[in-house]
């Protein structure tokens, strides 16, 4: 058996930052089975071509150099556009290989992906280790009958077959460590430096690890590559979580398990992974790209304790991600992490408006949590890293001012993201037609009953719009579709820039102008913000001087 995994280029505006874990873990499974395996990591190899996409000729040569039984391709939603370019190359150079897609880019709507990328034979939905292992065994037994393998969407002429849901892995200690010798480690080490802390900036041999799968929070803008209970509810319920939950419960029962929103291997597994990287590559820094380490107090405390006892805390510093509610409630965790070698923790603060945090984000955090977390991080003398976003569904000028006020109060300089409804997130499922309408206004006319077409035409238009949306999806610093009830994309771009400059004077003057023009309530700011508003100050002065005015 001979297997090839292709890793598409991603985040072309910077160097390759993190190992492609999926490819190296699946490669380790192939090696355990005694198979031959290769990883064509285009994201690493692009550094040999000035950072641009790897030339097609090179990709063609590599793929055609062997007779592959199976070729797998994967990544996040943001690689959809590149995979669309790569798929015809794969099919042309390896027409008889089984072509398998998997990962976040294809797990949420595999039936649509099979229509949009006709070269693919199969999609692995969500967690891939067990599903891939069974595909491998099937092919090795000279069979192409994949219908009994759980967790797949299989091309069937012009349609597709969904197999039964794949249960999430109960014991993550069974996942093998990545086959590091098949990764372009020299390339990744050449891009070790990360400007998140002194230690990560000075790193010469930084490695990345990921242990946690999923997250205990239910943020509406987020998804987890099909690896949490919430994701499975959305996938199998096609956005209807209650309907999906019924299927997940059947899967629980059949597999004698309860599939959790978040899972971890043991702290021993994690520490042994770092020991392996230290022994094999002499790494000096570890990026732990788990979604939310601080949310699991028990696990993190045990990990830190073991990490220190293993003598790693002085030799291999590390950084990770966390969330404000967990730190605000248990601030002592931060010192425990720092004492174990933690150099930075990145937090998704998202917004400082309690209304937006409660109604739109739904992380279970408030502005008080944000302030307490920030104070705790500064007190521990760690680098505070936080991300914010604007364009949340019900966010108005007052909510934006709450966020800017938080930045002003904390003397922060922040460039916010624009909320992007990535496929798989609850806000995508809840706003699908609104999102697609921004790529094809005919869909809005159908929704409003102003245009009537047959179902087939409507489906075709929606699929084309989805293709345009997914092609557009980048890292959220640029615009795609917005789910904001109040602001257009051009308005959000202007707001983003004014907020980055903390230019409350221009933002609020603009809000006055827009309110006078439209009388739309989202532009009417509260008296609370008059202290930041020159228009209000001028009005106040006129009132004091009793000058008649028309503002």
């Amino acid at each position: 058996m001979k297997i090839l995994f292709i890793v598409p280029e991603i985040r072309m505006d910077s160097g390759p930052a993190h190992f492609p874990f999926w490819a190296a873990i699946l490669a380790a499974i192939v090696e355990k089975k005694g198979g031959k395996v290769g990883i064509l990591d285009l994201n690493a190899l692009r550094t040999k071509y000035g950072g641009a996409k790897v030339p097609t000729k090179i990709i063609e040569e590599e793929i055609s150099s062997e007779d592959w039984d199976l070729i797998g391709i994967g990544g996040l939603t943001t690689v959809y556009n590149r995979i669309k370019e790569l798929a015809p190359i794969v099919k042309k150079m390896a027409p008889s290989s089984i072509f398998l897609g998997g990962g976040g880019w294809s797990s949420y709507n595999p039936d649509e992906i099979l229509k949009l990328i006709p070269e693919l034979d199969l999609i692995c939905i969500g967690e891939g280790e067990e599903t891939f292992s069974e595909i491998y065994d099937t092919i090795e037994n000279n069979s192409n009958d994949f219908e009994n393998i759980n967790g797949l969407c299989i091309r069937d002429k012009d349609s597709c077959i969904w197999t039964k849901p794949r249960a999430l892995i109960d014991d993550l200690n069974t996942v093998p460590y990545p086959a590091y010798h098949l990764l372009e480690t020299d390339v990744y080490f050449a891009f070790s430096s990360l400007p998140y802390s002194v230690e990560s900036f000075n790193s010469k041999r930084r490695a990345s690890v990921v242990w946690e799968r999923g997250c205990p929070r239910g943020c509406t803008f987020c998804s987890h590559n099909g690896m949490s209970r919430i994701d499975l509810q959305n996938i199998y319920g096609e956005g209807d979580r209650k309907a999906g939950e019924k299927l997940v419960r059947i899967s629980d029962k059949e597999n004698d398990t309860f599939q959790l929103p978040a899972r971890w291997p043991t702290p021993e597994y994690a520490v042994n992974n770092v020991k392996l990287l230290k022994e094999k590559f002499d790494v000096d820094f570890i990026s732990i790209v788990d979604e939310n380490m601080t949310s699991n107090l028990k696990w993190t405390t045990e990990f830190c304790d073991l990490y220190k006892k293993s003598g790693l805390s002085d030799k291999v510093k590390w950084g990770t991600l966390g969330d404000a509610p967990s730190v605000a409630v248990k601030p002592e965790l931060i010192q425990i992490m720092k004492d174990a070698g933690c150099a930075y923790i990145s937090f998704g603060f998202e917004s400082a408006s309690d209304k937006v945090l409660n109604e739109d984000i739904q992380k279970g955090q408030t502005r008080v949590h944000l302030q307490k977390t920030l104070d705790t991080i500064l007190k521990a003398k760690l680098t505070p890293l936080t991300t914010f976003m604007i364009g949340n569904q019900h966010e108005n000028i007052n909510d934006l001012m709450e966020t800017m006020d938080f930045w002003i109060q904390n003397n922060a300089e922040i460039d916010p993201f624009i909320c992007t409804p990535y496929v798989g997130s609850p806000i995508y499922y809840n706003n699908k037609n609104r999102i697609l309408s921004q790529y094809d206004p005919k869909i809005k006319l159908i929704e409003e009953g102003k245009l009537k077409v047959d179902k087939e035409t409507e489906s075709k238009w929606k699929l084309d719009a989805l293709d345009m949306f997914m092609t557009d999806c980048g890292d959220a610093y640029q615009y795609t579709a917005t789910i904001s009830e109040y602001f257009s994309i051009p308005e959000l771009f202007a707001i983003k820039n004014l907020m980055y400059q903390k230019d409350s004077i221009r933002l609020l003057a603009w809000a006055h102008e827009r309110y006078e023009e439209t009388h739309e309530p989202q532009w009417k700011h509260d008296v609370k913000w008059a202290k930041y508003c020159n228009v209000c100050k001028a009005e106040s002065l006129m009132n004091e001087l009793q000058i008649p005015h028309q503002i």
Partner: protein
Amino acid sequence: MKTNFKEIKNQKIVSNETPNKELTAKEFEDYVIKSGARGSFMIYRSKNEDEEMGIDDL
């Protein structure tokens, strides 16, 4: 491409993008100030230097 069954041919060496000079905490602070937060995460400033950016030895 790396495989577990054949030697890599014509491997081009990648230039090392990691800065050669190790920055001190103060130099890193200056670097962050110059870079700004545009397109990145964020920067927090404080009037009290002791509270700033986790810098121990300003």
